[in-house]
């Protein structure tokens, strides 16, 4: 797993896998304000790990919310082939009056899982993120990283093929974030979810993504993308990740510089 063959930058290959998300001519503005998102066209294959990268305020979270159905596009259309998507936020947003296990069970309940199966299912999901022992703990008794893992288990409980993540590890310390990258990658490989991962952290995107989309700011457009042919695991410290990170950072800075005038 640790031996990395190559991280190469290549144009997006023509889709062979079934398409999970299609975005067509999407635009968004709030009221009569400036354009936040402009003419976004995107097609994401099923099972792909896509990182959406951009500076703060470039509209990447807005794009994610539109895919999630939490906001409506001003123009264009978004199609999620499997129906609705599961979402995970930067803040774990666990319900503080429920234990970790109950938080997962609530998602199962809202999905329609019968009561008798919920307990066992939630334990299985918590075990997937290595938290089966913490099922009876309340959110305030858990560390930030543990809370995010419960949130991950909760979004997996929704049983939706597409998982949208809005800077889920941005508030964590570097050691925890590093571990959660491994955890998330493992869960992704094990469950075959399609993941759209929003981040402003270039290294994080280079570490996790199979496909990295760079967004410009004001209005938000997708200006470049990288596809990483290697599918094996890679470490955030590896030279390949660093090289890709440097390249993306250069582009990102150029995009940011354009806003100086």
């Amino acid at each position: 797993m640790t031996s990395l063959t190559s991280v190469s930058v290549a144009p997006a290959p023509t889709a062979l896998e079934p398409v999970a998300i299609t975005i067509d001519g999407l635009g968004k503005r709030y009221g009569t304000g400036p354009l936040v998102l402009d003419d976004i066209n995107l097609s994401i294959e099923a099972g792909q790990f896509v990182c959406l990268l951009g500076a703060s305020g470039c509209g990447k979270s807005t794009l994610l919310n539109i895919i999630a159905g939490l906001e409506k596009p001003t123009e264009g259309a978004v199609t999620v082939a499997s129906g609705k998507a599961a979402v995970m936020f930067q803040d774990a947003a666990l319900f503080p009056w429920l234990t970790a296990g109950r938080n997962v069970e609530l998602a199962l309940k809202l999905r329609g899982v019968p009561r008798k199966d919920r307990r066992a299912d939630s334990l299985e999901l918590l075990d997937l993120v290595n938290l089966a022992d913490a099922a009876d703990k309340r959110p305030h008794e858990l560390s930030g990283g543990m809370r995010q893992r419960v949130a991950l288990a909760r979004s997996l409980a929704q049983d939706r093929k597409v998982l949208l993540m809005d800077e889920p590890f941005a508030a964590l310390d570097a050691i925890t974030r590093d571990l959660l990258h491994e955890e998330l990658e493992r869960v992704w490989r094990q469950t075959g979810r399609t993941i759209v991962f929003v981040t402003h952290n270039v290294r994080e995107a280079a570490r996790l993504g199979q496909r990295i989309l760079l967004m410009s700011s004001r209005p938000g457009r997708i200006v470049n993308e990288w596809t990483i042919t290697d599918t094996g695991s890679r470490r955030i410290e590896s030279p390949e990740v660093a090289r890709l990170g440097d390249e993306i950072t250069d582009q990102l800075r150029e995009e940011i510089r354009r806003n100086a005038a």
Partner: protein
Amino acid sequence: MPLDARTDTIRGGATNDPSHDELRRLEAGLDSLQAVPETPRGAFRRTLDGVLPPILLLIALVAAWQVYILIVKPRPDLTPGPLDVFDSLVSAWSSDRLQLAVSTSLERGGLGFLIAIAIGTPIGLLIAECRPVRRALGPLLSGLQVLPSVAWVPAAIMWFGLTDATVYFVILMGAVPSIANGLVSGVDQIPPQLRRVGTVLGASHLQMATLVVLPAALPGYFSGLKQGWAFAWRSLMAAEIITMGGTIGFGLGSMLHQSRELADLSGVLATILVILFVGILVELVIFAPIERRLLRRRGLMAAGLR
């Protein structure tokens, strides 16, 4: 979507590879490093910490009062000593007036409070969740909360005469706005993220209200209930002092009024102390334990208050 699809995909992966075990051990180590160790104190110690300081203060106050009486020697009919007040309590007890007054008042206060909860809760929920209702009713409700409910006594006497209905009406006018307002502020303080999670998880309107909004609003709602009880108890005393006779039973307010008419200052002071004591007791025995439990379960309690 078939329900067992997820189980299949989760079980599908291999979990026996060594790097996964290593990750698990790493994570478990980090979890135990980051966990906040709780040091619970025993129930006895907690009770002692809560009960001892107020009792010591009470003893000190009574002692100061007695010393003042012994040194200054004021007119006993204008400044009765602690012993006179104690005698009044004993005589009220032995004539069964005290027990009657306390039980009558507590029954009215408790029943009125429960009715106020039943009325105030749906009103509060409606105001919190329905924008037009909030615009129309919100200011009125805040106004009603400021209006002293004793102001309703004359009107209530004209409407209901000297009956218990008058007393209950005044209690409701005092408690309902507090309870409704408490629920409204509880709902307003819900982090918007929790509602978004509810939406993302696919909750219907009803599920959102019962599984997300109401439990999330519970701390605010509960402090509204506490305030509602305080208003109910105060309104009740005021109503009992003003309205006497008719079919109205003998409550603590009536006892206060009676002592005043007999110019029995130690009786008046004794009754005031009983009213105060009942208020403290209800807070300590009913509200405080529920509130502590509620806040501690959510990690909202400051370390010093545990």
